[in-house]
């Protein structure tokens, strides 16, 4: 593989990530019997927001103004650490998965501080829930990566995920299924989807992500929306690398498969959102601790079969 093709994966992410919310919305519209927004709606929104003016809260200061761009930068760099469609990530190095987790941590830290900078109770509430759920989600992600790292005998994200093949699924289907389901829960939780958060309503007192960016407007809001789409792409890619191991024949075959795979994940998310209700907030920690338990079970099984 030539070094230049490594950049294709992340560039695909930058380009196609806004498709995912479009697909999810179309699936939800289909279930509700509506026509729904165009699939490219998110692109229209982004272009519109970039050209718009911006309203700042009188309470907010520099933190609120800078945070969207720090969030977006951190998520973009995390994207460049994520291997896609069987190709190595361009910035990969040993131990990079830890940096990726903490880059997403910076994105969250900036977003939470921006929310608190408005002094709004709603945003404070969203921020408080965001930090609670992400603290519980972190062990699930890290222990899952440890499992794959022990399976592959490597510590780089590209190596870890590259070692998963169709053969691995034959060898340990149960463990990988446990990990896959836990990470699907994680994808829903980290990206503010049902059953953890409802992206459709942002003024209900029950909401998390949407309420945190309630006062963000114009290009700043665009940056936040784009960062959210990229984050969904990152978690989707993580899951897809696990459940659809694409060997290394040729990048030009893998990439279309990969993008189709990402879109099918979006369809699945849409289906889940259509047929499930949001959980009560008190139940969410149980869901996340449950996901961590699934991953740990996989790891214990690995100890046993060794």
């Amino acid at each position: 593989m030539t070094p230049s093709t490594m950049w294709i994966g992340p560039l695909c992410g930058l380009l196609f990530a806004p498709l995912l919310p479009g697909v999810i919305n179309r699936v939800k519209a289909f279930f509700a019997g509506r026509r729904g927004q165009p699939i490219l709606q998110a692109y229209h929104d982004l272009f519109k927001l970039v050209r718009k003016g911006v309203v700042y809260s009188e309470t907010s200061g520099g933190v609120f103004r800078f945070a969207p761009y720090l969030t977006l930068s951190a998520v973009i760099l995390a994207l460049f650490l994520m291997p896609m469609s069987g190709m190595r990530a361009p910035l990969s190095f040993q131990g990079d998965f830890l940096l990726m987790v903490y880059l997403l941590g910076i994105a969250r830290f900036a977003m939470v501080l921006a929310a608190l900078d408005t002094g709004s109770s709603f945003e404070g509430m969203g921020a408080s829930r965001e930090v609670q759920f992400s603290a519980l989600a972190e062990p699930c992600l890290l222990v899952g990566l440890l499992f794959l790292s022990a399976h592959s005998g490597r510590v780089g994200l590209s190596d870890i995920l590259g070692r998963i093949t169709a053969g691995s699924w034959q060898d340990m289907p149960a463990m990988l299924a446990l990990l896959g389901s836990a990470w699907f829960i994680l994808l829903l939780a980290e990206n503010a989807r049902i059953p953890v958060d409802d992206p459709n309503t942002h003024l209900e007192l029950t909401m998390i992500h949407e309420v945190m960016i309630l006062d963000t407007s114009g290009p700043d809001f665009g940056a936040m929306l784009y960062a959210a789409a990229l984050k969904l792409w990152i978690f989707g890619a993580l899951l897809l690398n696990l459940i659809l191991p694409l060997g290394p024949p040729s990048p030009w075959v893998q990439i279309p498969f990969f993008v189709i795979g990402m879109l099918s994940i979006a369809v699945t998310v849409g289906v889940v959102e259509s047929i499930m209700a949001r959980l009560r907030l008190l139940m969410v920690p149980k869901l996340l601790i449950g996901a961590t338990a699934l991953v740990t079970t996989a790891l214990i099984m690995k100890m046993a079969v060794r």
Partner: protein
Amino acid sequence: MTHILLGIAIILTGGMVALMLGRIPRLASIVAPASVLLGSIASAPPITRTLIDRSSPILTANWPLPLGRFSVGLDPLSAFFLIPILILAPLAALYGASYLNREHDRHRIGAHWLFFNLLVVGMHLLLIARDGIVFLIAWELMAVSSFFLVVFDDRKSDVRDAGWTYLVASHIGAAPLLLFFAFLGSRAGSFDFTGMATVTAALPSGSPIPSLLFIAALIGFGTKAGIIPLHVWLPEAHPAAPSHISAIMSGVMIKTGIYGLIRALMLLDSPSAAVAWTLIGLGIASGIAGVVLALAQHDIKRLLAYHSVENIGIILLGLGVGFLGLSRGNTVLAIAGLSGGLLHVLNHALFKSLLFFGAGAVAQATGLRAMNRLGGLLRRMPWTGFSFIAGAAAISALPPFNGFVSEFLIFFGTAAGSLRGSPSELTLGIAVLGGLGLIGGLAAACFTKCAGLVFLGEPRSSEARHARETSLLMRLPMLILAILCLAIGLGAPFAFRLVSPAVESLTGLNETALAATIEGLPAILGRISGISLALIALAVLLWSLRRRLPARHLESASPTWDCGYAAPTPRMQYTASSFATPLTLLFRSFLGTHIQGKPVEGDFPADASFASHTPDFGRRWIFEPLFRGIDRVLAPIRLLQHGRIHLYILYIAITLVGLLIWKVGMMP
């Protein structure tokens, strides 16, 4: 060596002179900090030399004391632990000079500086001691001088109570250490460290003595370091002490407990896997319990004190991982774990002092430590605010700051050292990645709360509304520390070089021994620094692109969206307690938070109140019952003490007669 002794002498003299200048506090506040700075500069050359060429000079002299000899020396481990002292002692002195310069403290300032300088001297001496007696003298010097520093504001009863708690705790801690050194010294026939190191090797295998000695050292040094459940003095002493004292105690002094523990493990046999697992278990327990207790606090300095417990947990975890690797011959575990643990000692010193300085600036500007009454301070105190936010990001282990580098080493060592996938390796992996991951997430929750509620939003009280930025002398140390936090994050390979001499001296392993298994750690850390730099560059680039968009001309301001509510007030903002409630509810069975107040009732509620308080579980479940028990057992002896002097004289007479009879009876 003479350089360091000269440095100590300068600092000691400075303290004495400051005491004599007590009537002119302004002058005392110049002399003492200047002497600390000068002394630190004087001590720097030999420390740098030891870190570069790994030399271990030693200096021994006889003294008139009946026990031990005056033996001091330097080795890479001591040199590494001296770095934070050399950086922080002058900065804390500089900050303190401005922090204390208030009228109503003037008569105490001279004595304060004497004890401050004695504390610095004690820490220096402790780290270079090569003899058990010198070590214990330095230990006691440190404990007593810091007690006087804690009770600076001794007109307040809670400060006096905190001081007593601290004094009692440090002496409970000193007792096992006395046993530890007395046993080793009597077996070896000398209190010299090299002599003591041979004792356990001579014991028959299977002897319980090394384990008992380890437990004594763990209790003694663990009390100073603040390991759960011996941490009870931290949340009392730190809020009570002046902020530069909290900074130096939390940033540097508690690390002497870690240093002592490592030194004690080196004096005993090479650490076994059981010792390592004990450290790992205590590390995770301290980490999680510390951060959860911190989340439940309303007082900003108390919150920071509990975070010291958390960070000591992370340090122990790193050391445990390293010692486990050492006992198993697993090079990656040993080197990455120990480097991570030791580097976290330095990192924690930097960001925790920064945070305490920030908290002190806030307390001085507003007179408040209760987070629920602060808010909106970033506008009023931008230097303090941005430094504090940098410190908050650093302690939450976020790149590009230093906290990430040390936690990364611990994480990475564990992951890279568990690749063979044996059950014990995977157990370690679950414990460290799951535990440290949870600690990291909770720390981020706690510091978004702390930084966000204090510095962002609207002020929640008139004190906060009228706050002013602090003096230049107090801003400068914060700025320097924030820059150092960033510098270690962006120069991670260099920071690794700083810690590797100490790691080599502990493990006997060179970093190049890793080359066979993984690409060099400095190279990996270089990638982290590179990507951190890229993050800053990208954010600035995006921000400057944003400045070119049409939004530049189309900016308007309006009140925060309040869902149409007509009369919002700052009191309606989310508070620190409400922010932390989801997490404290999750851990409520552990925290045991008391909630008092009158709930809102009826359609037009007249008055309602709410107050919550989280007691310290170590104090409540371990120490209070223990002391009550001791009290009950010893209560009958009180009969002897009734305040009548003639009876006391009778006791003396009886004792003397008894001794006389005994002596006569013993004669042949």
